[in-house]
């Protein structure tokens, strides 16, 4: 018998605006000692179904409409809150997506770690601590005894996720639910965590329910894959079978969306639009005398018409570099020549003029659009500001922009919150293009998007780049995306450039160790596709 057998589960949310069916009769199972992965994009109901059966969705507004969830023969949906509590944290443990927010910042790691043990099992504090330290060691935390009394903020994301895993495992659960446990992490860390989960699963013989939006990530480790779309299960099967012979069109769409291929280095004319020399951007955090050297002595050229990929992990300074070029971050030292003019010294109107010529596309389309301005207002602002068109021509210019970025014109009076992530990113692109810029910094423009949308946006950027004759600095942590879109690649590590070259050269013949480890951590699913 399966460890967890979910059958026809339905969940809905009742709000002021009506009832929303989040999960519409989903069935899946987790076998003992196996990994089942649920794949789906945001809003597909994959997380909700798992939380619902453990009584973790707030009710109201959440409501379980029907179905069964048998855990080890026990009907979870029929249990009282108290009985469910007994199971949670003891038999079924969870790991969540964002280790930054899932650990209580006000409690020490140790205190949080031993809590499930103290609550569910009659152990003394000392015993619990011993056990916790053992586990910390097992999940790969160095000097666990001394970290026991540290607070979460003293750890990096990867380390916190290890702590979360240790916390989940401390009661030797039989089922581990991992909700996007690697999504918020850097690629190299992502690979390590995946490996750790797989290893622990093998060693301890537990069932794992792995929730992810990224098919490539789960391809390696899952024994079974369930694909969900808009609250419904569209396909399930073994990874091999799924990858080789996807049945449902949506599954095919997901597979196709995995970034692949490599751009041909077509037109790298050594005609520099931007020349950066000895650029330093240092920050001085309050209460610390040590400056943070976000960008430290970087020199580079960006050629007219090229897409220059900039890779690096979080904290490598890649975003700061992009912002420094646009004068959005204060430059400490060095020069940035744009078309022969040093923009680091510009102020007032000349600066405003240059701002028109260089634009930026941000990572998070939820944050980069003013939530209280309509699409029309958002697009009109740059057009009017820079006198691209007058009041009369405004509607026409906006309509053209909408067409260019692939948005239906009738959306024009809507607010950002009424759009999906992909649509918002289109608006953001439209805003950047409105000034008819020559140069665009795209800062992780697709990493907050679902995979299928990712592909569309990349296509759009590519197409528009040609149409508008853009030069682009494309910042990303995702090697696959970079390979897909960039002509040349720069690799950044701790504020410095450590490798540069054509995309082909960097990917096929990496020089720096760090580049090699980056490449190695690309989930093999990408390769398989």
């Amino acid at each position: 018998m399966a460890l967890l057998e979910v059958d026809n589960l339905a969940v809905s949310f009742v709000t002021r605006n009506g009832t929303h069916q989040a999960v519409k009769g989903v069935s899946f199972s987790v076998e003992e000692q196996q990994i089942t992965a649920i794949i789906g994009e945001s809003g597909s109901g994959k997380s909700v179904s798992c939380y619902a059966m453990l009584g973790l969705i707030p009710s109201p507004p959440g409501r379980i409409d029907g179905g069964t969830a048998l855990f080890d023969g026990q009907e979870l949906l029929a249990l009282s809150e108290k009985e469910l509590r007994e199971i949670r944290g003891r038999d079924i443990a969870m790991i969540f997506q964002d280790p930054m927010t899932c650990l209580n910042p006000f409690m020490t790691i140790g205190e949080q770690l031993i809590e499930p043990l103290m609550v569910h099992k009659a152990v003394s504090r000392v015993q619990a601590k011993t056990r916790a330290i053992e586990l910390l060691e097992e999940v790969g935390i160095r000097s666990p005894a001394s970290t026991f009394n540290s607070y979460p903020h003293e750890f990096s994301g990867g380390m916190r996720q290890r702590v979360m895993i240790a916390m989940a495992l401390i009661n030797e659960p039989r089922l581990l639910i991992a909700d996007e446990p690697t999504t918020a992490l850097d690629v190299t860390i992502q690979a390590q965590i995946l490996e750790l989960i797989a290893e622990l699963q093998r060693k301890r013989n537990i069932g794992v329910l792995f929730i992810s939006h990224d098919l490539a990530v789960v391809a390696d480790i899952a024994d079974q894959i369930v694909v969900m779309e808009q609250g419904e299960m569209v396909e399930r099967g073994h990874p091999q079978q799924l990858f080789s012979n996807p049945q449902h069109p949506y599954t095919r769409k997901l597979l196709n969306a995995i970034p692949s291929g490599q751009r041909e280095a077509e037109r790298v004319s050594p005609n520099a639009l931007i020349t950066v020399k000895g650029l330093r951007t240092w920050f001085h955090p309050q209460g610390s005398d040590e400056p943070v050297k976000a960008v430290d002595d970087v020199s580079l050229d960006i050629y007219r018409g090229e897409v220059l990929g900039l890779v690096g992990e979080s904290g490598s300074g890649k975003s700061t570099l992009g912002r420094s070029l646009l004068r959005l971050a204060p430059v400490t030292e060095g020069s940035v020549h744009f078309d022969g003019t040093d923009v680091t010294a510009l102020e007032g109107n000349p600066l405003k003029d240059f701002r028109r010529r260089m634009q930026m596309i941000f990572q998070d389309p939820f944050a980069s659009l003013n939530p209280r301005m309509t699409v029309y207002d958002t697009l009109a602002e740059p057009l009017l500001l820079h006198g691209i068109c007058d009041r009369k021509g405004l509607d026409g210019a906006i309509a053209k922009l909408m067409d260019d970025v692939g948005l239906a014109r009738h959306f024009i009076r809507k607010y950002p919150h009424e759009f999906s992530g992909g649509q918002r990113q289109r608006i953001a692109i439209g805003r950047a293009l409105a000034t008819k810029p020559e140069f665009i910094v795209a800062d992780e423009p697709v990493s907050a998007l679902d995979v299928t949308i990712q592909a569309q946006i990349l296509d759009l950027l590519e197409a528009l780049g040609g149409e508008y004759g853009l030069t682009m600095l494309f910042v990303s942590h995702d090697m696959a995306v970079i390979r897909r879109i960039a002509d040349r690649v720069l690799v950044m590590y701790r504020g410095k450039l450590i490798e540069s070259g054509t995309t082909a050269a960097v990917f096929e013949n990496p020089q720096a160790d760090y580049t090699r480890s980056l490449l190695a951590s690309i989930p093999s699913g990408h390769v398989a596709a």
Partner: protein
Amino acid sequence: MLRFILIRLLQALPVILVVITATFFLVRSAPGGPFDQEKVVIPEVKRALEAQYRLDLPLHEQYFAYLGDLAQGDLGPSFKYPGRSVNEILFSGLPVTAELGLYALLIALSIGVLAGVLASLRPNTVQDYIPMSLAMIGICMPSFLLEPLLVLVFGIWLDWLPITGWGDIPGDKILPSITLGAAYAAYIARLSRAGMLEILSQDYIRTARAKGLSEFRVVTKHALRGGLIPVVAFLGPAFAGLLAGSFVVETIFQIPGLGRFYVQAAFNRDYTMILGTTVFLSTLIVFFNIVSDVVAAWLNPRLRGQLGGGR
């Protein structure tokens, strides 16, 4: 940590100096003087009085003389109460007012936090509406209205509690403390509700629930610490506010505290007393703001690191 506090204290000095200067000249520009009486004072007598209190000097000399005395901790003699120094009056009233403020604050805290937390646990239900409506009443109800109500009900009709005095009769501290604390209880209730709602929507609360903790434990161990930080940050200014705002309560309940002097001093043109209370209060306000900032920062492990103290 120490450095942070020191810097804050140093920054406070010019602030207080400006306050003193502004008050000094503001007070002096008010019509009427400390020795004006209903029955007119003979000019010779008035001159003698002004000479005794240095009021015959040019204004700027008075100002610097005052600062000189202040530097030595001398707030000068009271005009209204000859024979008493301002220091003496302040320090005779301070313990009483501080005690009253402390009780009021404790009452405000216990009622406010309880109501706020209860409300936050079931937002938009009766359990939320009732305490929050009471809080709204608490905010809206002026103390000069709440006081007679409380006195009438508990002091006269029910005859449970004494209605005046401070420490003379057992139980006479209850009504003034409640009266003074009510408005703050209401603010604290709102603050803790908002803080708790914020924290309860955090991911780590879900983590705690996923661990199988009881709801009580989730609230007390995981949510309260973060949820009450805004309340802690509010306590400093609140306490300073309580000290300064005890005027009505102290007058009505005949409590020998500081508050009765503040407003009276302004009406009496008791220059030294006005300045003394202003200096004293500003110092308290600044001090308590620093304290509550430091405590709030200290309670937050992320900020505690920034304070430089480590753990």
